[in-house]
């Protein structure tokens, strides 16, 4: 399980964020005393740090420099300051990414995953395997029992979204938002069309009812 350290002095946000990341399947470490940041990082060895800029006492930039002296852990700045100058400064002191508050939560999660992947912790990103189906996101193919079919970009993304969270129901709205995040700007009707085509391809592979529809709730695999 990957561990994320939250450095944030607003208790409400800290706690809610910890709960949210916990629900997403991460382990969470919370840092309240900023003066011990470097030592705590050495001790906890987090896989990623979420760092607020506007901290009491020491600011996030200084803290980032201190952390960089002892560790190469990916650091994502989460901040309510949003000028280009702030962003530039954050990246120049060694931050890996920069997200502004109030954050779009799916985006936050996605960026965390990207930063973790970039660090090589999560290498098997070009194919996902769930219940006997292998989705190759690079080649754009679906494989099952030695048979393989080609899928379109939209179909790959739809499946990727569902297969990343097996067993979980993903609502149509969340699915559409995920696709928009990936520059696929489709509406409800187009999603239905894509879903139907995807289902028939899965049926060809012998995986009828691989995607389960929960009426009024969404889809799951």
């Amino acid at each position, binding site marked *: 399980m990957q561990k994320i350290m939250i450095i944030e002095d*607003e208790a*409400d*946000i800290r706690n*809610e*964020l910890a*709960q*949210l990341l916990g*629900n997403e399947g991460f382990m969470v470490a919370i840092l309240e005393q900023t003066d011990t940041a470097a030592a705590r990082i050495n001790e906890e060895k987090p896989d990623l740090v979420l760092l607020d800029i*506007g901290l009491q006492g020491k600011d996030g930039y200084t803290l980032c420099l201190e952390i960089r002296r002892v560790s190469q852990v990916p650091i994502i700045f989460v901040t*309510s*300051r*949003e*000028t*280009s*100058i702030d*962003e*530039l400064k954050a990246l120049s002191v060694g931050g890996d990414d920069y997200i502004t*508050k*109030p*954050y*779009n*939560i799916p*985006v936050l999660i996605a960026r965390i995953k990207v930063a973790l992947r970039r660090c090589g912790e999560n290498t098997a990103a070009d194919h996902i395997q769930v219940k006997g189906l292998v989705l190759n996101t690079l080649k754009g193919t679906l494989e099952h029992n030695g048979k393989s079919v080609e899928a379109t970009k939209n179909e790959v993304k739809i499946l990727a979204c569902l297969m990343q969270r097996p067993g979980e129901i993903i609502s149509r*709205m969340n699915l*559409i*938002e995920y696709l*928009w*995040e990936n*520059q696929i*700007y489709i*509406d*409800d009707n187009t999603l239905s069309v894509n879903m139907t085509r995807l289902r028939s391809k899965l049926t060809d592979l012998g995986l009828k009812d691989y995607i389960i529809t929960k009426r009024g709730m969404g889809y799951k695999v």
Partner: protein
Amino acid sequence: MKVKDYLADRQGKLLLHLTAAAAMSAFLQLTGTSGGIVVILLIVWTIGLVSVLVADYLKINTYLNTMDTIIEGLDKKYLFFECLPVPPSNFLKKMFQIFRQSAKSMIEAVSDAEAQQKEYREYIESWVHEIKVPITAQQLICKNNESEVSKKILFQAGRIEAHVERALYYARAGSVEKDFIIEAVDLNEIVKKTISKYRTLLIRNGMQIEVEPLPAEVYTDGKWVEFMIGQIVANAVRYRSDNPRIRFHSERLGGQIRLSVTDNGIGIPPHELVRIFERGFTGTNGRKEGGSTGMGLYICKKLSEFLQIELSAESSENEYTSICMTFPAKESLTEM
């Protein structure tokens, strides 16, 4: 100053000389001075008068030219009296002193106002940062406790956020402080980020998005432009038609890049089109829909001036509205 104008100012003086010369000639003639001597006296008189006038004219004209050069070269014209050399005559000196006093008090007033504005703006900036903390907490709480109610609250939080953001950029647009960075940014990336930011609103309203490849790099501040495109997108949603669509298209115009954001919405009546960038202008559509503040595009216009972006609009009622942003060529970006 033209010679004619100079002489017109001295009409009385010249008339007096003329009368005095005439009176003197008459008197001398009557008292028996010969005509030749009178003529010589008149010539000497004229030469004296003309040379005095010419010298005076040249002095004044040189000074006026200096004033012209100074005022033209000044960016902040109210600093004029601080730069002006002491004038050549006592009368002008007295005037100069009085004007200078007035200018001093104006300079003080201006710098006071600037300081106040800066303070106010800094307050708005820090207030915006502070208000974002509870908005963020609210979002996280809603997300951690998903229900029909929390979704509604989340939607309202989004509206609050949009208003807060506008207030922030309004404070920035009206400020003399310039805290933007001009750098090469990928237009594609900016459009992508803006769509992502507004995606819930866009999806909820069934908006179709067409992004033509925008392979252009522009020299500007990405964050500011994101905000501007955001306002345009929000307007396109607000004034949408039944099958709403937004198209992003860019083209090269020499060194410049023009991005147009075109919707197929209800459009803007021609007589109102010229006013949409005015402060507080809401128009027939804005009043019909309600909730329009008339600030979004006004702020965009102000920001675009800082970034040297040309902002223009085209529209046809019940057909489309197209807002174009023309980004300056790299070479033409003047020192900011």
